[in-house]
Structure formats: structure tokens, C-alpha cells
């Protein structure tokens, strides 16, 4: 579905991505993990076309995304910190997004209903709490029934109940054959919903493996421990 080849990106003197190769396939939940500043969000923004890479290519369903925008029809994005026009009311925001996207897909309003967002539709976006804003971001990402979902730290800031609803929604989307790319720092959550893990370290892919093979190789039961073991063995090598 998405093929990334030798992506490089520099911000000023700071080299954020140093040649990342990866491919993501439909029906998978891939979790991108890595320390802060390892380039996770930049990689995601490259796929979204929000950041233009200096080098390398990204293909979406066989087509280069450079100077193309129609592929974003198939994308749903939930940012780490959702920022919306402050004066706009929540109901107006949803109406505007529907108007702007004019999607041919059937709308998926499940999250709007489950989070009961319509009860708050007259509230201006600037008055919403961080958690509610995250719920709006999640609902917007799923709204247009996209084939690919990109979620940047989706459960950070959500209360446990809302996080469970979102995780159930992610699992359901996976069963529908969608590709879901998630960044997260919470290992237990990654273990629960992801199939494969891509570890990004200082702008490079350190490893990209399925969770089962990770556990087999290290002989550990818990994902957190397995990853720690790999990191240790690499630092000794």
C-alpha cells in the first residue's frame, strides 16, 4: 500500500530522517516506536505530504505522492495535538470537513456517536478540553472511511474509557482490511493492537519486525522486555 524508499529530511542543520526504507501493507497495524526526536512525526508528515522530503520517494498504491493530492482521499490522519480554527463550533467543523472532502465513501460516524460529540456541537473549538479535542481528531480521522489511517499517539490524553473505544475501533478497522499506522510510547498498548513494530532511532530504521517474531527471537513474553533486550544486544555489538 505504501512504499517508502530512502527518505531523507533535514531541518536546517538538523538531519531528522537519514534514509528510511519501509513498506506498509493493507490489513496490518504497524506501530512506529522510538525515542523522542527520532523522526516519527516527521516520517508520518512525509507520508501525509505535510512535509516535503529532501530525497527519496514515497509511493501510495503504486503512485508517487510528490505533487499529488488525490491520494489523501484514502487517508485519515489524527495528529498528536489537534489544532482547529478557534472560533469555529464543533458542529461547524464537522460540516466544513464533509463539505471540503465531498467524499464518495459512506461516512463512518461511529466514533462521533460513541463519544457523544454531537451533544457538544455548539461549543467553540477553543473551549474544548485536550481530551475532547483528541476525540474530535479521532472522529475526523475515521469519518471518511479511509483505507489508510495514520494515528499519531492516539490515546495520549484520552480517558481510559475513550481509549478503549478507540482501540476497539482500530481493531475493527484492521479486520476490514485497512492499514493503520500508529506511533505510541505505551508498550502494553502497542502489544495489544499492533502486528508489527518499526523502531526508529536517530532517523534510521533500527528494526521492522512482527511482534511474534520479536518475542521468538528474544524468548521474552512481554514486548517491552523483548525490545529492551534487542536494544541492549545492539549497544554491545
Amino acid at each position, binding site marked *: 500500500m505504501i512504499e517508502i524508499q530512502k527518505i531523507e529530511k533535514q*531541518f536546517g542543520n538538523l538531519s531528522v530522517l537519514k534514509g528510511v526504507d519501509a513498506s506498509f501493507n493493507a490489513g496490518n497495524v504497524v506501530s512506529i516506536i522510538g525515542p523522542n526526536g527520532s523522526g516519527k512525526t516527521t516520517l508520518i*508528515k512525509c507520508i*501525509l*505530504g*505535510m*512535509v*516535503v522530503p529532501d530525497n527519496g520517494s514515497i509511493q501510495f498504491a503504486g503512485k508517487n505522492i510528490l*505533487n499529488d*493530492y*488525490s*491520494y*489523501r*482521499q484514502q*487517508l485519515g*490522519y489524527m*495528529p498528536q495535538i489537534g*489544532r*482547529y*480554527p*478557534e*472560533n*469555529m463550533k464543533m458542529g461547524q467543523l464537522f460540516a*466544513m*470537513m464533509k*463539505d*471540503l*472532502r465531498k467524499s464518495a465513501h459512506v461516512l463512518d460516524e461511529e466514533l462521533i456517536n460513541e463519544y457523544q460529540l454531537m451533544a457538544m456541537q455548539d461549543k467553540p473549538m477553543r473551549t474544548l478540553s485536550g481530551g475532547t479535542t483528541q476525540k474530535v481528531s479521532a472522529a475526523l480521522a475515521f469519518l471518511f472511511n479511509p483505507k489508510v489511517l495514520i494515528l499519531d499517539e492516539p490515546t495520549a490524553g484520552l480517558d481510559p474509557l475513550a481509549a478503549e473505544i478507540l482501540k476497539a475501533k482500530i481493531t475493527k478497522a484492521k479486520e476490514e482490511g485497512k492499514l493503520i499506522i500508529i506511533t505510541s510510547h505505551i508498550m502494553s498498548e502497542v502489544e495489544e493492537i499492533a502486528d508489527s513494530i518499526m523502531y526508529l532511532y536517530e532517523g534510521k530504521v533500527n528494526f521492522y519486525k512482527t511482534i511474534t517474531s520479536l518475542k521468538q527471537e528474544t524468548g521474552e513474553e512481554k514486548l517491552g522486555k523483548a525490545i529492551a533486550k534487542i536494544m541492549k544486544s545492539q549497544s554491545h555489538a
Partner: protein
Amino acid sequence: MLKIAKYVIYDILRSKVLIAYTLFLLVISFSLFALETDGAKSIVSLLSIVLIIVPLISIIFTTTYFYNSYEFIELLVAQPLARNTILLGEFLGVALSMAATFFIGIGIPVLIYASSSTGMILLLAGIVLTLSFISIAFFASVAMRDKAKGIGLSLLLWFYFSVIYDAIVLAFLFSFSDYPLDRAVIALASLNPIDMARLMVLMKLDISALMGFTGAVYKQFFGSSFGLFYTIGIMLFWITLPLLASVRIFKKKNL
């Protein structure tokens, strides 16, 4: 593009800044017309408002608006919309609301008190000036990531076009006063939208006789129909060039 412009206009209407600006222009132009019985004299006083205040407000309002709607732009960039559609939609929204503001604030009093051809030229010059300074403001705000730097650059550009540039032209005229400069002066005026707007109106006011030999050259050149097309062409150039430059930058911008 039109849809984006529509949401931009909604958003601008919700903030009260432009309404205050409209009232300000209305008060100024009505009081100028009330003070003078001769409409042409009021037009000259209005001209200085149009040449100084209108570009200043246009450039400052547009720059602050652009940075304040950064969230909206970020949201749009992740959607299936082309980057140039997004930027041109933003421009169209701001341009329509600012032009409407100018038309209400200055246009209506002029139509009531001085609906001569001079009044029409003043309105045309004002609207074109508004649009070109919005375009320049877009360039400054797309080029600078930091809000303070963007507003600083906008103010600097305004200061350059309304003060510094004229000083440079004067210095140039003084140092080369032994040479025939008539053509050079026309070329120099074309490099500044404010000068072009000023000439457009002054030529209509028949006071070019006061400007000596240069005035005669101006009159001969800008008074002709070729001169009119030239002026309009140059003004259009001042609207499109900064806008095209900002589209180019915006296409490669990291958000």
C-alpha cells in the same frame, strides 16, 4: 478554492476587526467630504488616506490573519486538496473581504459626493492597491515561519514602498539631474505600486502642471490610452507576482 474562500470569509466576519476598519474609513471619508464643498479637494485629501492607511491596514491585517489561521491551513493540508488551491482560496477570501471593506468605507461616500471619473479612478486605485498589498503580505507570511518575523517583514515592506522608496528616487533624481531622466522616472514609478496608484489619480486631477517638466512627461505618457493600459498592466503585475511567488514557496513548505 471557492469553498475555502467561503470559510475564510465566514471566519473574517466573525472577528470584528474589519467592521471597525470599515467604520473608520466611513467616518474619515464622510468628514472629509463634509469639510470641503469642492469634491475634487476632498478627493486629494482622500488620496493620502488611500496611499498610506489602506496599504498599511491591508498588509498588517492579512499577515496577522494568515498566522492566526495557521491551524486551519494545517488541517487543510492533510486533506485531499492541492496546496495551490488552499493558498489561492485563502487569498481569495481575504481579498474579497478587504475589497468589500474598502468599497463600503470609501466607495459609498465617493459615489454619493464625488461620483466623477476622478472619484472612480480613486476607487480603482484603492482597490488595486489593497489587492497588491494583500498579495505582498501573503508573500511575507509564507516566507517567514515565525509570526513576529512575518509581521516585521510586512511592516518593513510597507515602510519601504511608502517612504524609503521615494527617498531613493529623490536621491537618484538629484544626483543625475544633469541628464534627461523622463523615461527613467516612469520606469522608477512602475517599481512601486503606491507610486503607480498616486500617478493614476493625479493624472486625472489635472494638477500635473504643478509638477514641472516631469509632470508634462507623465501627462503625455500616462494620459494616453497606451499609458492607461500600461498602468493597469503594471498594477496587475504587482498583484500577481508576489502571489505567484508565495504559491511557489507554499508548495514546498513544511507544516
